[in-house]
């Protein structure tokens, strides 16, 4: 094990290296480029024994890793924003084909107008593609999540997207423990899948399926997601035994006696943790629920934690125009079937990479104190 200061993009590359990926296909886009630059170097100097297909688009990148995974190779790609949107069709296809592809997505706002800064709308727009989604809050988690993603994906034959904030993680150096290869090999066995393209056992995959069977195949994808809820935590604990770090579905902080709980993902959650500490010093009963795994959506955990709160704040750095915050909508959905659920205040802030500071988050808690009822949408910091 060694410790290095690396940017989040390189944490993705190291995650792929340690997972011994065999086929990479990628297309450059800011702010993802460093991921594939480092992987190209690793492939070129033999550190990583993989085939790197330097495709002409993200659509082809996703198709190529799909073909590789269907052939029995462990496959990886990374992209961002417009690139992820271009992959959309194939993201659905990879899930339908039950292929355990793992990708990195650096959250970046959509154009127009052009923006290269962080916002979760790109990955959240892929919510219904059937990909598992992990939102990392630091570079260590980015690296570890790639390894964990392959471990879970390959058991369930579901793809996983490891998501990180543009610049706040992608281009920010943090100290990261690089696990020993032997230990990763012990944790993550080679990719084995009996349902592959094999001339010795020829099968057709994905052929025309009439209404008699299509629904059952979709049901099985959903069931695999439900299994993932347990498996992610089980593998998280196995990982903890070997590497000393635990990652679960959600990451609650000081919620046990909290009257107001703020829900957030990614780096905004790290900032919120600091705000919670400062408010706790003032005697405020506040807590944080970071959602780490957005798909499968951890309904049970979220209900369990939030049902004790008097008020819930959801911070969304994303927007579904005409509806509001995407995570807030999911959280409200999770709470709806509880008999007495707390009111939900849905805040939209930090779009297009605008700063979300500790002060901003403390303000949310202060505002919430004055409000008795929930609110479907509250815009924070709009200058109009």
């Amino acid at each position, binding site marked *: 094990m060694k410790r290095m200061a690396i940017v989040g993009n390189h944490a993705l590359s190291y995650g792929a290296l340690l997972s011994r990926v065999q086929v990479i296909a990628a297309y450059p886009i800011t702010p993802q480029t460093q991921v594939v630059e480092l992987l190209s170097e690793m492939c070129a100097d033999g550190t990583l024994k993989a085939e790197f297909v330097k495709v*002409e*688009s993200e659509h082809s990148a996703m198709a190529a890793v799909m*073909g590789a995974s269907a052939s029995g*190779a462990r496959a990886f790609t990374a992209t961002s924003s417009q690139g992820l949107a271009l992959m959309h069709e194939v993201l659905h296809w990879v899930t339908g084909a039950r292929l355990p592809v793992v990708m990195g997505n650096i959250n970046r706002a959509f154009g127009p107008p052009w923006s290269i800064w962080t916002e979760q709308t790109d990955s959240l727009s892929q919510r219904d593609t059937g990909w598992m989604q992990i939102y990392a809050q630091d570079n260590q988690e980015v690296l570890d999540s790639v390894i964990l993603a392959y471990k879970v994906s390959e058991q369930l034959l579901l793809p996983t997207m490891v998501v990180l904030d543009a610049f706040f993680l992608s281009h920010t150096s943090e100290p990261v423990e690089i696990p020993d290869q032997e230990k990763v090999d012990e944790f993550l066995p080679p990719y084995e899948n009996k349902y592959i393209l094999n001339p010795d056992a020829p099968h057709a995959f994905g*052929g025309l*399926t009439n209404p008699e069977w299509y629904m059952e195949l979709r049901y099985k994808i959903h069931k695999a997601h439900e299994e993932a809820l347990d498996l992610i935590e089980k593998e998280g604990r196995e990982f903890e035994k070997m590497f000393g770090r635990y990652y679960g579905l959600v990451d609650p902080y000081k919620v046990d006696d909290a009257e107001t709980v703020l829900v957030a993902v990614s780096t905004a959650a790290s900032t919120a943790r600091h705000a919670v500490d400062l408010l706790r010093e003032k005697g405020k009963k506040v807590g944080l629920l970071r959602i780490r795994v957005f798909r499968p959506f951890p309904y049970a955990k979220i209900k369990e934690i939030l049902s004790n709160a008097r008020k819930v704040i959801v911070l969304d750095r994303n927007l579904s125009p005409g509806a509001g915050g995407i995570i807030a909508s999911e959280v409200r959905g999770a709470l709806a079937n509880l008999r007495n659920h707390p009111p939900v205040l849905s805040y939209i802030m930090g779009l297009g990479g605008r700063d979300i500071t500790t002060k901003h988050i403390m303000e949310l808690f202060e505002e919430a104190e004055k409000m008795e009822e929930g609110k479907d949408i509250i815009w924070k910091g709009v200058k109009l």
Partner: protein
Amino acid sequence: MRKLTLPREEYMTPGHLACQGCGGALAMRLALKALGKKTILSIPACCWSVIDGPFPYSAAGVPLFHAPFETAASTSAGVSAAMKILGKEDVNVVAWAGDGGTFDIGIQAISGAAERGDNILYIVYDNEAYMNTGIQRSSATPYKAWTTTTPYKFPKSRPKKDIIGILAAHKVPYVATATVAYAEDFVKKVKKAAQMKGFRLIQILSPCPPGWKTPPEITIKLARLAVQTGVFPLYEVENGEKYKINIKPKKLKPVIEYLKLQGRFRHLTQKDVEEIQGMVDRKWKLLLAKEEFSKQIENLL
């Protein structure tokens, strides 16, 4: 009398869902004879998405991955990379697509794979329109042909896209045309391409009775006439430079003999036929000149 040189082995099975007289089904049967068992097919949206048979059946007899419309080349690029890293380089990685998936929606991925030199054999069975969706024009539809989106009053106003020229310009090791009426030439080309490395493409003219409005029993006759009239010459290009015409009729038959058998051309006037004849003559002369020129440049270089 010439001996039969086609391989006896059959990989494609009966029970497929092709229409009667389908050139695309015959094309697959012949291609698999040439390629053999060690083959992986990636097939995007096209007639073959249906022909292979509904889940859980498959008529191909070799592993087949159904892929999104524009991804025959890119999916195959991934399969090919996997074969390399897994040490299975004796497998023929084949992209099998229709003209829509090749000339139109898939051309970006093809250009990418061709330029990178991905180790893929790309076979386009060209039936000259979107037949699976019910006969809409593609950029492979010939000049003046009827389709449901180029009705008789407004038939296709532009000539067929030159896919061989486009791939030859990528300087890939091998591009060729073939058709189901010349089975030995077809099998020979597929075998030749299979033995090469890098990106290779074979365009197969595949008559489509419902789309061309022809009786199913004349599919072979039509494919033969396409060659004999010069509408679809059989030739190959190596490394983008070396042209070779494989079937060279002493004298081309008039195009009317090919056109008059097809309902999709029944609206043509005498003037239209003359214009098409002129285009075919010009294309044939250019091809002869290219073949001659490639012989000369070999001496020059």
